[in-house]
């Protein structure tokens, strides 16, 4: 079981593929298969960063457009999410993302019908037959220690605060405050959650500590 950093391949991989050059994978992180990068086409200097001891299981797809950037924090567990990213998707430390969750920072197509027809007519001429990123995109930020239930969707521009929980099959349209349980389609606040986290968290820098120590908060 090893990660070959020079070839950027995984010894256990069933898919014949490699980790793209502009992806930073922490050496303690686990990536189940490079198939997750089949639709990855980011040209950003750092198109994806997978943090310390994070886990990316089968079914996760990095559908990242040319300008997209994905950041996955330390100890995060991504159990098969579809990450549709043309701007930025950030998943905080300790967060757990369940199966068939959709995190989309863009609708990929313009909302206006005539403009959408132009993009659709263009697709057969594109080498990857993908829509080119003309649609608006708004960064998604999932805080630290957030749990997102299966088959939920998080829509463009949404921020989910630290410690919150999203119930299964929810569609998150609006921002979620920290330490809050939301559920439903569209998602609504069910109740707040007591913050009983220990003051010192292993391997992670708390948001409050970043502020106290004047560190960047992203």
């Amino acid at each position, binding site marked *: 079981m090893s990660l070959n950093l020079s070839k950027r391949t995984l010894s256990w991989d069933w898919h014949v593929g490699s980790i793209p050059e502009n992806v930073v994978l922490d050496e303690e992180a686990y990536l189940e298969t490079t198939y997750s990068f089949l639709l990855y086409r980011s040209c950003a200097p750092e198109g994806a960063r997978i943090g310390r001891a994070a886990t990316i299981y089968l079914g996760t797809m990095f559908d990242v457009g040319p300008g997209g950037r994905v950041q996955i924090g330390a100890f995060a567990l991504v159990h098969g999410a579809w990450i549709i990213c043309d701007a930025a998707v950030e998943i905080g430390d300790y967060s757990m993302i369940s199966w068939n969750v*959709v995190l989309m920072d863009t*609708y990929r197509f313009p909302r206006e019908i005539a403009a959408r027809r132009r993009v659709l007519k263009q697709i057969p001429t594109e080498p990857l037959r993908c829509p080119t990123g003309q649609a608006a995109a708004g960064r998604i930020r999932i805080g630290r220690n957030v749990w997102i239930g299966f*088959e939920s*969707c998080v829509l463009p521009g949404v921020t989910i605060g630290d410690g919150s929980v999203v119930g299964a*099959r929810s*569609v998150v349209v609006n921002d979620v405050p920290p330490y809050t349980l939301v559920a439903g*389609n569209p998602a609504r606040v069910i109740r707040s959650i007591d913050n009983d986290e220990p003051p010192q968290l292993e391997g992670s820098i708390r948001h409050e500590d970043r502020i106290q120590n004047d560190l960047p908060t992203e």
Partner: protein
Amino acid sequence: MDGVHFAVGEAGRIEIGDYCYFCNVILLCEMELRIGNYVVAGWNTTLADTDFHPISPAARIQDAIACSPASQARARPAIPMRPVVIEDDVWMGPNVTILKGVRIGAGAFIEPGALITHDIPARARVLGNPAQVVGSV
């Protein structure tokens, strides 16, 4: 058409128009799915023109036997099916479900995760389960 799952029964018929863009869509068809031009459907979206099994408990027992290895060619009970029609320029986000008999009007915008059991007027923006019209395009 990338990763599209065509589950089409013997009498099923699917029609898809020009310049459509489907990604991992599940098409469940025992009768008819009619999809117009310039239709976009995102990941894990499901369209079905039938529920596949009856609702009545007695009919469901008959159906379970007819579908089993011991069916001895017994006929299945009647199961309701109604065609699904998606008109031109409809956009359907990921994890959308469209059930039997639904007609989606031209240019409608179906937000991710919506579950549609009734007709949607043209150019409506729809969200939720049950789906509600929340605006227009």
